[in-house]
């Protein structure tokens, strides 16, 4: 393990309940600044994998080290890591009772103890970054799905995380809104932040990913550069999956 790896999974196993083995012997090292796309059929454990990184899920066996800190039951370590890891969800998960601006200033004010004015300035910068600054004083439910997801990205960026996790960020969106969200993500990818993206947007994978990971039944079946992954998939399972999602 070199110090250049910002996330390391070593022989990680996880079960839901007693018998559903959702992650099997996961070994994975993510370099600082690397952009990884994770794909695979539903139930293959890809969401669970990235949710283990900020401990929304606990693993039962093996080691996960994020930015030099091992994830254990130590609450302080978890809180520290969560400050450095931003997450974007499929269902946006904006706080509906708070305005867009309040959604963004919440963590800077309460987690980073930033003064309100500074937090608002930073929030406005992030909103401008996702091109939605004019909606700052609306409530989330007054925005379109694409706008809400861009707000969610801006919210995750407010603590200037080192790592961004995207859990199917475009799966709940209407087709014409997917592009506005992907554009923001492509822009972000060019700025040196470590990104792990669970998605089936293969165009996005080809455009920005350094590495594509294919998961099935809790295992990493194949990982490669996008060019190799799409043109010369090694395993039959990957070929089968690609033929289904690239078929149209």
């Amino acid at each position, binding site marked *: 393990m070199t110090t250049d790896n910002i996330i390391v999974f070593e022989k990680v196993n996880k079960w839901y309940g007693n018998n559903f083995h959702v992650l099997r012997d996961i070994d994975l090292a993510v370099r600082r600044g690397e952009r990884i796309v994770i794909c695979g059929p539903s139930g293959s454990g890809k969401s669970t994998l990235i949710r283990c990184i*900020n401990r*929304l899920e606990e693993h039962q066996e093996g080691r996960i080290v994020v930015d030099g800190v091992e994830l254990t039951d130590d609450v302080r370590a978890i*809180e520290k890591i*969560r*400050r450095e*890891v*931003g*997450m974007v*969800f499929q*269902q946006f*998960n*904006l*706080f*509906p*009772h*708070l*305005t867009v601006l309040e959604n963004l200033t*919440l*963590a800077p004010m*309460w*987690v980073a103890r930033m003064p309100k004015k500074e937090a608002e300035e930073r929030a406005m910068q992030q909103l401008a970054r996702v091109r939605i600054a004019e909606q700052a004083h609306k*409530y*989330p*439910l*007054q925005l379109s799905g694409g706008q809400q997801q861009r707000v969610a990205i801006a*919210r*995750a960026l407010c*603590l200037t995380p080192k790592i961004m996790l995207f859990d199917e960020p475009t799966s709940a969106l209407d087709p014409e809104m997917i592009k506005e969200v992907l554009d923001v993500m492509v822009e972000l990818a060019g700025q040196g932040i470590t990104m792990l993206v669970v998605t089936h947007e293969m165009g996005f994978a080809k455009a920005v990913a350094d590495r594509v990971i294919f998961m099935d039944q809790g295992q990493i079946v194949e990982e490669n550069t996008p060019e190799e992954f799409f043109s010369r998939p090694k395993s039959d399972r990957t070929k089968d999956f690609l033929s289904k999602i690239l078929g149209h």
Partner: protein
Amino acid sequence: MGAVFQPIPPRPAPVRTEGVVPWIRANLFGDVKSGIATLVILALGLYYLPGFFKWAVFNAVLVTDANACQAARGTGACWAVVVEKFRLIVFGRYPYEQQWRPELATLILLALLVASCIRYFWKPWLTLAWVVVVPAFFMLMGGGWFGLESVPTDQWGGLPLTIMLATFGIVLAYPLAIVVALGRRSTLPAIRTLCIVYIELVRGVPLISVLFMASFMFPLFMPVGKTPDVLLRVLAGITLFSAAYLAEVVRGGLQAIPKGQIEAAQSLGLTYWQTQRKIVLPQALAMVVPGIMNSFIAIFKDTSLVTIVSLYELTGALGLALNSDANWRPFKIEGSLFITLIYFAFCFAMSRYSLWIEKQLNVSRKR
């Protein structure tokens, strides 16, 4: 030949849609079913109301003369009983010359309550106001300082006692209920079990038993002379009782919060308590405002049960006022109607406030 002038046939005049008659037609006789309902209700009203008005208004006795009231018994209401026994009903056994004290104390408390209900006043000084007003209330009521005559709590009574028990019952039960509701969903088994046992135990017992225990049984377990005041014990009983019900209402709201909300808060690095305070509770409580207000109204009216442990709040004071005087004893219906009006005024105000606050809290839900 030129065309012959052919006027088009006149159209029927438009139906009036405004005014009293069209309103009645649309709302009371819109179709056969609503027409029948209107007629039935009208008939019932015509049958019963004249008798009531005859009793309550036309034949009513207003002069404070017990003999005139006796003469009108059965045919006319004796509102004079309210005038005659007003101070006793409203203030109970509180010493007559000192009754300005509960009056003043209650007015201050009510003013603070109303202020606390208005968003504009939700500023830090409101907390300070509570810190000042609550001790002031008890000092004014209890006396024993600045030359104020000392009045023991068993002499407090009437509307001030009702308002005091309801106010402090609500103000104390609400935060307790939130803590218990959170505890019932805790991942720590000891805390969860404790909360479940508390809720189920209290809900399995009538309030009357709780009050009996607080008043008569609890002192048996305490060292002689160290027993807290009966009023405090009863207040604790009401609080613990109401909090158990309220906790279940709050839990209903907590359960309606999607898991994604909590995950989003966690992923931002918020602690458990920050997540509850900033994300979960504001949404959960806004969702269960009607249920919470239901409980508050129930608390307000349940205070009438403290009569059975010899504390004479509004309902008890009415009994006290009339039972002790053979001349006025028969006119309990009139007295009851009077205090009914008082209860109704408070409960209706609470219910309207609940509607208003619901609207306020739902601003973010409007698209």
